[in-house]
């Protein structure tokens, strides 16, 4: 027993002496940026897109030799934490990144149910955080340190209402949404308000709901068809979109179905197939027919990971770009992490007309960006094609 014990200790000492870290005494200063992403849990595809976009960004920065602050290059390290698509995990991950890893800024979490509590932690610790995808106003409200990379639902609702009015000349609309999920519910309500403002009260002839994980929508769709609606608006996620569109067509619905930015996943067309061709939705960017830096990003991503990036990846990319711009324009790195975080926050608040791949961005007082929405058409090849741009 004694011999095996001394053997273990001996091995440990040797391993310790040989480990490269034992000799890395004077370490160079590294800027750490946290990524809080749902890598496991309900929406792993979102986490994957976030992670891939972040890794691509890191490659770029490394190729440039690091971030340049005040004429000096600093190395960058990403701290990617999994939040399991759970609120308390997102809070723990943020706390860990802020206090343990000492990140200078955090990008993520993506969904509102994690971004709202995690934003509270970031604000309490005075650490700048950008949530690329969260649309809940509470994420950034009264939180000077929390920003957002996407437009809000109070903007998107009217965009879609106006677009449908102009494009199809419809006056009666139906809405089908998930009552148990915060994003579809919020957007459905904003759409209803906007639509009734244009066409008068009662012009939303059917306002039908279901609950998360429902798979049969025939009763709601039958009601919608009987109500005489001319268009269906359904702000759902990719898995439900496919079911809703297919079932609507089976029930004889031939009129348009319009969606929102949650449609913009690579999976939508994979699951839905030709049923979805020719439909429109509002989004942050369109992959097919993109030009300039947007196209460069898409091509690179597709080549590397084998599929066209969805809007989460694009928004994460932009959020990291804004963080980079803020860090590079913050003036000087003091080495005191608290002071540096505040400097980054102040630089973020001053960002004007940032040219991102999802459009130009300027932050408002609340940390929400002013940016344009894009109307996307799913073309006959199943690609997301740019149709038109709507600006506030």
């Amino acid at each position, binding site marked *: *027993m004694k011999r095996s014990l001394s053997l273990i200790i001996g091995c*440990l000492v040797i*391993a*310790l002496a040989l*480990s*490269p*870290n*034992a*000799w*890395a005494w004077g370490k160079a200063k590294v800027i750490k940026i946290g990524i809080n992403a749902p*890598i*496991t849990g309900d929406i*792993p595809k979102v986490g994957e897109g976030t992670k891939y976009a972040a890794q691509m960004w890191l490659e770029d920065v490394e190729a440039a030799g690091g971030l340049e602050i005040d004429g000096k290059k600093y190395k960058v390290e990403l701290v990617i*934490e*999994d939040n399991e698509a*759970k*609120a*308390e995990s997102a*809070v*723990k*991950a943020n*706390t*860990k990144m*802020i*206090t*343990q890893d000492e990140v200078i800024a955090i990008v993520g979490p993506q969904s*509102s*149910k994690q971004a*709202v*509590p995690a934003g*509270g932690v970031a604000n309490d*610790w005075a650490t700048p955080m950008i949530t690329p995808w969260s649309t*809940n106003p*509470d994420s950034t409200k009264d939180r000077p340190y929390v920003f957002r990379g996407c437009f809000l639902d109070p903007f998107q609702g009217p965009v879609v209402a106006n677009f449908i009015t102009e494009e199809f000349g419809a006056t009666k609309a139906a809405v089908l949404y998930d*009552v*148990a*999920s*915060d994003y579809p*519910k*919020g957007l459905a309500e904003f759409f209803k308000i906007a639509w009734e403002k244009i066409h008068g009260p009662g012009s939303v002839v059917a306002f039908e709901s279901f*609950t998360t994980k429902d798979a049969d929508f025939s009763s709601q769709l039958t009601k919608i068809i009987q109500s005489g609606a001319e268009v269906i608006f359904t702000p759902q996620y990719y898995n439900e979109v496919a079911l809703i569109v297919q079932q609507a067509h089976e029930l004889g619905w031939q009129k348009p179905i319009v969606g929102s930015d949650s449609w913009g996943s690579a999976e939508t067309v994979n699951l839905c197939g030709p049923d979805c061709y020719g439909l429109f939705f509002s989004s942050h960017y369109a992959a097919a027919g993109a030009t300039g830096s947007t196209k460069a990003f898409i091509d690179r991503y597709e080549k590397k990971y084998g599929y066209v990036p969805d809007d989460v990846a694009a928004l994460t990319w932009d959020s990291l770009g804004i963080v980079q711009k803020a860090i590079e324009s913050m003036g000087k790195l003091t080495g005191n992490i608290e002071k540096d975080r505040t400097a980054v926050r102040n630089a973020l608040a001053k960002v004007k007309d940032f040219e991102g791949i999802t459009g130009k961005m300027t932050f408002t007082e609340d940390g929400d960006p002013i940016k344009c929405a894009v109307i996307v058409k799913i073309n006959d090849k199943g690609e997301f094609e740019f149709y038109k741009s709507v600006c506030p």
Partner: protein
Amino acid sequence: MTNQQPEIQSNGPSKGVKGFFKAFRSYFSCVPMLGWLAGILAAVLFERFLGDLIAEALGLPKVPVLFGCMIMLKDLHLMPSALAFLIGVYFIPILLVGRALASVFNALAGMIYKISPMFSVVLHLALLYLVLHLWADISAYRVMTLKFTLVAIMLTLSLNVINGYMGEFSCSHPGFMALGAYAASVFTLVLFTNDRFFGEAVLSPSLGVYFFPVAIIIGGFTAALGALVIAIPSFRTRGDYLAIISLAFMFIVKSLIENLEVVGGPRGLGSQPNYASLPMVFGWTVLCIWVINNFVRSTLGKALNAVRDDESAADAMTVNTRRTKMVGFLFGAFWAGAAGGLFAHILRYVNPASFGLQRLAEILAMVYFGGLNSVHGSIVGAVSISLLGEALRPLELFKWIIIPLLLILVMIFRPTGLIAFKEFDVKQLVRPKN
């Protein structure tokens, strides 16, 4: 009742790993609880004052926050350093102080015990809090993990009352937790916070901290009230109805909150005041363990066991089975509600999606991993699953393979859980070992 392995009793010559463990156990068996706590205190103090220095010398970026697991899994090169830190800062001081001063602590523990066993328990608890506080003080991440772990202990114990001691299968714990969380949140938000939902604070916000226990109790009672709704119909019958009704109840609570715009609907309710400090959560957890432990050891607790083992026989022996089951169920629900109230104030945000099937699976896993019908087991189960979940986080997807695999292994080798059917005798625990 005893689940001890036979090899512990055998006295023959010992060889190999088993022998090593046996020698190890007998060598340290004379250390009293006081000695262990003192050893941990020494280790924690050691880490506090020299941790940074040692970590730097070993080439670690910072003091390993969860016993080095995260560092090891993130960067395999750092494994020896992290292990060395763990052994040097934790194992050696704990074992050394515990063993070397065992006789001193035994005498001391005996002296305190003679004054009054209750006093001894309180002293041990104070020491335990000191240890936890010093340990967690190193980083806010530890505080956060510790708070959620303590809440997990409360939840596991309260479910164990129903699933373990009473032998019914209840699935409504997330529902009770949600009721408690929302009730407590609404109480503190309406009375002590200026927020968007309920407007100006009714009372002065400075009073809030003192009324926080009231909020938790209200949360508990709301959950118990909800439990009454299940208990009345399901305990009229015998059999597995409770599982189905309670599962339905969980979904009812979730949809109810989703459709209640007053409390934010699916968007959730945020900006709860920061009242759930570590001493507060620790105090509630201790209270919960103490009350539940006394409950299950009382006549009523024994009646619960009798009902579980054979309801007709219990009835014949003058146990009022329906009342017993009702009380047990409501009691479990109360503590789940209290845990929910604490949870809401630690997270400072609640939304209905947090109280779904995933949460249920988590709590059930803790109960069955730790062991049915045992307070020890619940504590062990809650702590180990919480810490494992946190420590294996860098493994991402593989974490969800490893934890279920562990559960399956436990179910194969110890079908009732790690430490099942064992009585938790606090006095025995604090007694000197000689």
